[in-house]
């Protein structure tokens, strides 16, 4: 069986976005607040303070998301084949050893079909997505101890009446295997692995 390396798409994106946006807002807030404070211009202090607090909010989100990822570690998801045909089955193996004690609400492994559409509304560019959960497997939540290992194998199938991957300007149809772990009071741990589904039908039995 061919083992493909995986392409990680999301998960850390929230952290990077939080750091980037939070950093910009916090810096802008400080830059405008400190001179205003020195010259006792209270309106400037107020506006700069609001920017600073918004920035700190984003940075706080990034920090909690990063902390959640540190608590869980790096689960290894192996997909037997990431170049698939419509109707083809493939295997997904989840292997993870917890480095720290962690309480989890749930662990989900999903096969997702995602439509992404980007459009112009006035001067704004907007993007909407719609996820179809084709297969959903859930591991029970609970307390996982440091050193505890989970190993699960799943067989998934691109539906025979499904669609292949399409990526054209402002319109995308994509397939993903999604791993999600819910940690109480922290942002969910999410990793997505894109599958390339070719415009070919799988032969019977594949």
């Amino acid at each position, binding site marked *: 069986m061919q083992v493909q390396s995986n392409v990680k798409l999301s998960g850390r994106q929230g952290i990077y976005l939080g750091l980037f946006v939070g950093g910009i807002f916090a810096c802008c807030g400080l830059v405008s607040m400190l001179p205003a404070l020195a010259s006792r211009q209270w309106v400037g202090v107020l506006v700069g303070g609001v920017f600073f607090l918004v920035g700190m909010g984003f940075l706080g989100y990034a920090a909690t998301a990063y902390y959640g990822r540190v608590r869980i570690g790096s689960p290894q998801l192996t997909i037997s084949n990431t170049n698939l045909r419509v109707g083809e089955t493939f295997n997904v193996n989840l292997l993870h050893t917890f480095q720290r004690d962690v309480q989890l609400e749930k662990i989900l492994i999903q096969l997702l079909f995602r439509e992404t559409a980007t459009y112009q509304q006035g001067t704004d560019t907007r993007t909407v997505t719609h996820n179809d959960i084709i297969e959903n497997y859930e591991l029970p939540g609970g307390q996982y101890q440091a050193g505890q290992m989970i190993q699960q194998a799943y067989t998934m199938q691109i539906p025979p009446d499904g*669609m292949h991957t399409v990526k054209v300007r402002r319109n995308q149809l994509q397939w993903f295997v999604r791993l999600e772990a819910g940690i109480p009071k922290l942002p969910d741990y999410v990793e997505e692995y894109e599958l390339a589904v070719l415009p070919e039908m799988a032969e019977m039995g594949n």
Partner: protein
Amino acid sequence: MATVALELTLRGGEEGAGYRRYAPGDLLQGSLIVYPDADVNCKHLYARLLWHTAGRGSQYLEKISEQDLFQGTLPGNMPRSFEFEFVLPHQPWSFEGHYVSVVWKVQAQVDVAWASDPKAEMGLVVRPSSSNQ
């Protein structure tokens, strides 16, 4: 000003509920009947195979093939028939989704000098049947 009526007919594939279904790679054949009510100076008479996205996103359109069926004068009150054929590509397949759909069409257009161009379109479905598995 002359008016031109166009009638598109597709052949091959399978008959569906109000559409014809073709497998990727199939040969699509069709005919176009043109009914001008007066003499028309036709710069080009095009038959095109194209697909586009539909739905929430900005439209993406791709012209796969174009045939110039006729150039010259179309005599008035004299229907004329033209044949065309296209080999369908292997992708993308027709699809109807929540935000994104993929729509295939055959389009006919009479390019008339200094006038709006009469057009006709006919949708089709490009998708392998499940029995092809």
